[in-house]
């Protein structure tokens, strides 16, 4: 029964996105536009045998994917809560986890869309030099690795209104992404940024993505993201319980 219900929930979410795509438009267009700007300026530089454009696919890709999954489920759940729609789901026969999972999963095609748009942009500017398997690994790592951000997004959505949620999530997204080197390489940033970045999941997701293209250790990044997933899940559960009563 839950599979059928999940299908209905997912269809409702996707209809919501397709019929009123303004929110996702900005979370897709902005990262892709930034990427297009930076990759056309610096994409052809090379370091360690990998073009800057390809490396940027990992860093800007991490930003784009985080942007989609951090912003949309949280703002969606906050709006649903404000209009009483979440309550109507809570009192239905559907376990609330199914409803929330549909919200997260519905954002994933858009996250993949951001990555595909960036890949095409990098290719068009002639700065993409990664084989297809590496690109597919990058896509999987970024999309799966971004899921804990969706949990954090839900945790915030259970507590604040849609307007405040959008502001708060943006206030989380932009600074942590800049400090994590998702817009500009950490090598050209103050040393302080590097010290802070180590504690941010954005940085570890981006490094994990870079490792798919250029190789390198992954265990630390995986462990940090797993830890972040657990913390975000606990936060989301506590936040839901609080919102519920």
């Amino acid at each position, binding site marked *: 029964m839950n599979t059928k219900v999940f299908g*209905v929930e997912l269809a409702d979410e996707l209809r919501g996105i397709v019929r*009123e795509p303004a929110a996702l438009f900005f979370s897709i267009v902005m990262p892709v536009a930034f990427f297009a700007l930076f990759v056309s300026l610096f994409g052809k530089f090379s370091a360690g045998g990998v073009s800057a454009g390809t490396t940027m696919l990992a860093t800007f890709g991490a930003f784009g994917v985080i942007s989609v999954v951090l912003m949309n489920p949280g703002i969606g759940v906050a709006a649903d809560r404000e209009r*009483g*729609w979440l309550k*109507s789901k809570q*009192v*239905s*026969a*559907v376990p609330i986890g199914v409803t929330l999972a549909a919200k997260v999963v519905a954002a994933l095609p858009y996250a993949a869309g951001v990555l595909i748009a960036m890949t095409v942009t990098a290719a068009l500017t002639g700065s993409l030099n990664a084989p297809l398997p590496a690109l597919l690994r990058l896509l999987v790592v970024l999309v799966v690795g971004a899921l804990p951000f969706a949990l954090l997004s839900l945790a915030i959505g259970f507590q604040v209104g849609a307007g405040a949620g959008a502001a708060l999530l943006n206030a989380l997204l932009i600074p942590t992404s800049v400090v994590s080197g998702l817009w500009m390489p950490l090598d050209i940033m103050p040393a302080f940024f590097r010290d802070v970045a180590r504690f941010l999941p954005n940085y570890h997701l981006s490094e994990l993505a870079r490792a798919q293209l250029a190789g390198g250790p992954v265990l630390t990044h995986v462990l940090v993201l797993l830890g972040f997933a657990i913390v975000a899940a606990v936060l989301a559960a506590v936040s839901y319980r609080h919102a519920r*009563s």
Partner: protein
Amino acid sequence: METVLEVRGARYNYGATQALDGVDLAVGAGECVALLGPNGAGKTTLVNQVIGLLPAKAGSVRVRGGDPRVASTRRQLGVVQQSLGFPNTLKVSELVTGAAVRAGKPRAAAGPVMAELDLTELAGRRASKLSGGQKQRLQLAMALVGDPALLVLDEPTAGLDVPARKRFWQILAERRERGTGVLLTTHLIEESSAVADRVVVLAHGRVLAEGTPDELVARLPDRTVIARTGLGLERLQSLPGVVSLRNEGEHVHLGTRAPEALLRVLLAEDPGLTGLRVEGAGLEEAVAGLIERGAA
């Protein structure tokens, strides 16, 4: 008659505030029970326990024998909220079909319910574009499509015009004949008098009185003084023996257990008083009187 809702000794507190203090309540199949009481009486807390949003901290709440906190039990429930904002992006047919699937019914169950509630012609319209009455009918369709044993209605006709209200209760009456129990909370007490089989008056988290509307009215020797007067509402409220006050058109309705004393003061203070008559108390006055006596 099968019991579809059974609440026994339900308690709930928010910190030091005791919202529910040992409430017992039952709704039988096909029965409509109205839950009345002033703001803060515990109605919302009790309803939230019935629909599974809150646990009973003591006592028990059972819907057809099951705990409404468990998702599968909630298949027995249909809920109509006072004001539900539908997502801007979903159409009427999608919402009713979705509600059917969520309730474990086939998609095809949506069609007959939409027809029953005159929603077929609106099937392709976005729910957010519907009028208030249409939205309430849509909510009712979503609540009924799962063929629930118990309907929980929270101020279901607030904001509806008279024909829309009549239609709403007509549909409900048909469902009740088929065995659906109804728990209703409303501030439209006279309306509940017309549709409810039993009334439960809640105050300070306790059941203050319970019975048919006629039984509750008969418990009080109260009268209603009706008149057109130039006196302000504040002054009217402070007149001796006034236990309730409401406006109806140009008339005020003053519930009192001392009509003679009230009439003397009214006539003395407002020489221009017209349209004066004294009637037996209605349910609204009876409930107000019961609450006042319960609080005393």
